[in-house]
């Protein structure tokens, strides 16, 4: 899932400064599951802003609504009326949600309430960790299902650097060394030979380095026309 966390109330207040009417828009998908921008967080954020701006002496009119997915036009259509009434829309969606609102409602001013962090999973209650860097050319088949692009601090492809110690990465004792994990997993499966071959430099053109990416599925486009 996309993992995000909410910006500080102070930063949000600076983003909505000058607005008299604010609409907080939550999203019912990824950011709901990671407790950053779902309906509950939208309500709490709206209430906090109402209270805080009241204490500041400029009581802003803040309401909230949550859509199933901010990244699909049909769900955004449902809130067109509320968006039009607001001076500023505070999106509690990921960066995709914020941009979808800006694109779908060109007349509205939308600001982000979250920092979109990474693609990951909850490793335990209250802890989320990164797992995928969306590089566009998956190599997990070579590395035992552990990604060195997302999980090695240097995105190394040919084994661990000298900074691997006791299973963790030199940048932080809390960060597991991806290559130790890969080594252990391949070792346990009798597949260590898989990391003895030299992996050539990666083709990063499928990653962000190749410019904004796009996927076109002609089969689905044709089906939609029929």
């Amino acid at each position, binding site marked *: 899932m996309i993992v995000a966390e909410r910006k500080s109330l102070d930063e949000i207040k600076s983003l909505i400064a000058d607005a008299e009417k604010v609409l907080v828009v939550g999203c019912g998908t990824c950011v709901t599951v990671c407790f950053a921008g779902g309906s509950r967080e939208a309500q709490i954020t709206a209430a906090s802003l109402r209270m805080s701006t009241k204490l500041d002496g400029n009581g802003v009119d803040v309401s909230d609504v949550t859509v199933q997915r901010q990244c699909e036009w049909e769900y955004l259509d449902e809130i067109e009326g509320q968006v039009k009434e607001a001076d500023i829309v505070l999106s509690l969606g990921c960066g995709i949600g914020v941009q979808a609102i800006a694109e779908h409602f060109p007349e509205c001013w939308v600001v982000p309430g979250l920092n979109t962090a990474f693609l990951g999973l909850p490793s335990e209650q209250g802890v989320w960790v990164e797992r995928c860097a969306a590089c566009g050319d998956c190599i997990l088949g070579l590395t035992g299902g552990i990604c060195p692009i997302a999980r090695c601090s240097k995105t190394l492809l040919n084994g661990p650097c000298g*900074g691997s*110690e006791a299973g963790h990465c030199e940048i932080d004792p809390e960060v597991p060394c991806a290559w130790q994990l890969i080594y252990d997993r391949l070792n346990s499966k009798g597949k260590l030979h898989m*990391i003895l071959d030299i992996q*050539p430099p990666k083709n990063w053109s499928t990653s962000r380095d190749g410019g904004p990416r796009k996927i076109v599925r002609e089969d689905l486009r044709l089906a939609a026309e029929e």
Partner: protein
Amino acid sequence: MTTRNNGYLSGSILEKTLRAGHFTVTGELGPPQSADGKVIREKAALLKGYVDGVNITDNQTAIVRMSSIGAGTIVVQESLEPVIQMTCRDRNRLAIQSDLLGAYALGMRNLLCLSGDHQKFGNHPTAKNVFDMDSVQLVKMVADMRDQHIFQCGDALKGQEPRFFIGAASAPFADPIDFRPYRLAKKVKAGADFIQTQLVYDVEAFALFMDKVRQLGIHEQTYILAGVGPLKSPGMARYMKNSVPGILVPDEIINRMTDAGKPWAEKSKDDLTKEDKQARSEAWQAEGIQICIDLIRQLREIEGVAGVHIMAIEWEEAVRHIVEGAGLYPRPSVA
């Protein structure tokens, strides 16, 4: 191996010294955090005649310094042979290749290929890192430029190829420790002509690593220089043991350093005069140099160790004492 230059890959002094079978000595020179070339000249003067080549670090520990190639050019002018260091942290494959073409044109002949310390440790922790390639891929790219006359993309070079004597690093005691000889083998397979290891203080552990290296036959395909460095204080020894990944410091060595400071041990911190501290520091440094000399003597006995790489950054004056003490002075003439 393809060879030109009368059978040499690069024709560098480092290569010739190793090929001639001399126990080889390399040193290290850290460029300044300034544009002052005088610093390089002064450090070069301390090392000249005592080493067969000197590594010029590339923004080591991710702190901005004069570039390795820039400082290396000054070192060439001072008639000392540089080993340019190139990390994957700050440059993509375009920048690396272009800088190396320039480095060769400026007279550099040795190159050490490294991943690079993570920028988190340096003075620009908010920088974007590159890591377009890793150190193994870097070795192969430079070997292909020299031996296949091609750029990384496969296009042919148009004219003189850069003919570097290519080095890589090895961290024998970093984890996963069982993989380390194989990682070294990958670097050699990629084209590493010589290897410089992380600091060795535990000769016994290093000998075990070399056993495995010999079993794999790696010592016959590359020249391995064991990394050594003089300790300055017991505190430094403990810091290396406890806080630097991939460095083993046996208690025996920590005790030797502690014992060197014994004459001052009974005085409390507040009672130590400036002179006391100076004298204690000199005693520690003398012992640090002696330990380094002892380590070199032991490492020299290990089959497959072709030389030592002395890392005495910001303590370049120690190198001459170490080299002389280890009976490695004068350096052979191979030109």
